[in-house]
């Protein structure tokens, strides 16, 4: 039996999945160390420990994410877009094959159109700045003096619709200051911040072409308030797999497995 590992070295967290051709033997998420090579080593060791495996039992390692070439080890490098598609297609969805995939990470947002054979047909990504990404929500939570879970709860509680113009992490801060000065409730500001991102995701989805089933992965998919507003913005249910944050790492492990078994990517 072959075992492969997928490491997704992202902008905020690093993820590792060990894969045996059928299922994930371990899935680990860790906040980043300063150096991508340290993050990769630490998360790989943690995954091995969780699965009770030894480094020598892993046949191949694939790396992906922004640090994909900085891990210092690994046998295969693939982009997070391809890895995301592979992971999501493998995980599947009870409602039928996935055709639109949303991935909201710490520093970028991606929408991937998946063809009938599970291949990447098209994709869209945000520009170079943090507009409309997980980082944007983290910064605004801090501005409202909340941690992220409290910020999400606040957004879910909100009943009053307000509008936030900015998805730029820098300009939104000053917009929040003026909203607070006008005595707008923190709950409603939190909800508006989520909506601003959901709108952005919605327009990216429409650019790529909205086709069901729609799946939502990445750290952002763990955010219940965001999942709800994204569904509103798309006017459709979105499927969130069980461990959305490690889908990309799983996809990388699958890519390594297929390469090992010469199955073709």
């Amino acid at each position, binding site marked *: 039996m072959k075992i492969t590992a997928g490491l997704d070295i992202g902008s905020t967290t690093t993820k590792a999945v060990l894969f045996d051709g059928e299922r994930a033997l371990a899935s680990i998420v860790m906040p980043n160390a300063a150096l991508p090579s340290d993050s990769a080593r630490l998360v790989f060791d943690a995954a091995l420990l969780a699965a009770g495996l030894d480094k020598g039992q892993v046949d191949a390692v694939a790396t992906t994410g922004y640090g994909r070439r900085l891990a210092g080890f690994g046998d295969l490098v693939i982009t997070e877009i391809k890895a995301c598609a592979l992971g999501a297609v493998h995980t599947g969805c009870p409602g039928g094959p996935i055709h639109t995939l949303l991935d909201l990470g710490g520093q970028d947002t991606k929408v991937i159109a998946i063809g009938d054979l599970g*291949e990447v047909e098209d994709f869209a990504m945000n*520009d170079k700045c943090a507009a409309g990404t997980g980082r944007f929500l983290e910064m605004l939570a801090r501005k409202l003096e909340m941690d992220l879970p409290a910020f999400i709860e606040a957004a879910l509680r909100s009943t009053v619709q307000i509008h936030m113009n900015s998805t730029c992490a820098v300009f939104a801060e000053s917009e929040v200051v003026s909203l607070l000065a006008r005595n707008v409730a923190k709950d409603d500001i939190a909800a508006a911040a989520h909506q601003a991102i959901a709108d952005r995701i919605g327009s990216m989805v429409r650019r790529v072409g909205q086709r069901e089933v729609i799946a939502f992965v990445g750290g952002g998919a763990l955010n219940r308030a965001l999942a709800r507003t994204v569904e509103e913005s798309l006017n459709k249910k979105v499927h969130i797999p069980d461990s959305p944050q490690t889908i990309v790492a799983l996809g990388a492990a699958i890519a390594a497995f297929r390469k090992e078994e010469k199955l073709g990517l």
Partner: protein
Amino acid sequence: MKPSGQNPYRLPPAQADNPGNRKKQQFLEDEQFRRLAETPGRPAAMAFFEERLRRAAAVPPAKPRLGLLCNLVPVELILAAGGEAVRLDCGNSASVMAGEEILSGDVCPLAKATLGQFLRPDSAASACDALIVPATCDAKRKLAELLADYKPVFILSLPADKDPDRHAAAVAAELRRLAAFIAGVTGRAATRASLRAAMALTGRRSDLLRRIQAVRWEKPRALTARDLFACVQSSLLSPEPLDTWLEAAERLLVEVEAYTPERRSLRPRLLLTGAPMVWPNFKVLNLLEECGADVVADTLCTGVESCLEPAVTDETSFDALLRALASRSIFGAICPCFTTQTTRINRVLDLREQAKADGVINYSLRLCQPFDLESYRLERVLKDRRFPVMNLRTDYSLEDTEQLRVRLEAFLETL
């Protein structure tokens, strides 16, 4: 002939020149030279083109020098009148910073970088006796007005659309007016014979580049797109005479023809279209090649496209020569400042067949609206023909390199 655009409200000279900024400009050039040098097995003839680029700013004028912007000015008119021609479009992001002391952050980086070259006294721009600026996009038009404070400027008026039936006479008249302006600067008017000789010279450049490109279509690794761009741009951005360039290009052709690849290349073949990429801003070219693609053709006004079409005519009158120049430089232009983008779309579709490209990269320079406005139709037309295309929008700065790399690699994975 009185230069156009002489402003009654003259500005005091701007002071953006400083050693820190010059060091940055130099660093960016050196960095790009360093990256070019990383290519294994480069043709030896590239050394000539590199040197020519390296000293372009420092060459003292040997003749009256005319600077020009864009690819719509027929340089033959300058050469035929005994002047030296240098294209002043600039791709240095440190020069953008200098230009930003006058122009706002929301103006296209090409315009700002170009203006930045006029703010330092030791540039090729500052050594010009006069400038020729076609009234293409808004940025270039207003840049022309600003530059008129530094140098005599001739603004070349253009029709809004490229219908030769309606505009041939007006464009020919405009070129005659330009010829008279140039004669005023050089003290010598172009003649039928001198213009024909100049057209023969640029015709040889077209011919050589066509032949080099034909070899690349068979063996893309014979010459990287970056080296090809450096070769082409060393003829545009340097005021030195074209004949030495032609000799070196002959040597380059011999070398690329002799190149034998070890095995057949499986690298994806890309066609590059969109906004100008000017030395040393080869960021996107670096990325495309580093990600494992071969750029086999382009429609860029600073790429091979800029010199590919010779101006040809069977007639011999001066007016017929002007008409030939107009039909190549203006009616054949792919510039998005004209009302339709049909020329560019046709060109992309033709090149895709000829160069057997697997996909198209459409490059938009951030803040260059005309190219951006053309992206939607281009993308639709290509997608309707099931031809993979990716839009890349970026500027001169290097901070988004890694984001672009992910996108490019993922696009190449889908080919």
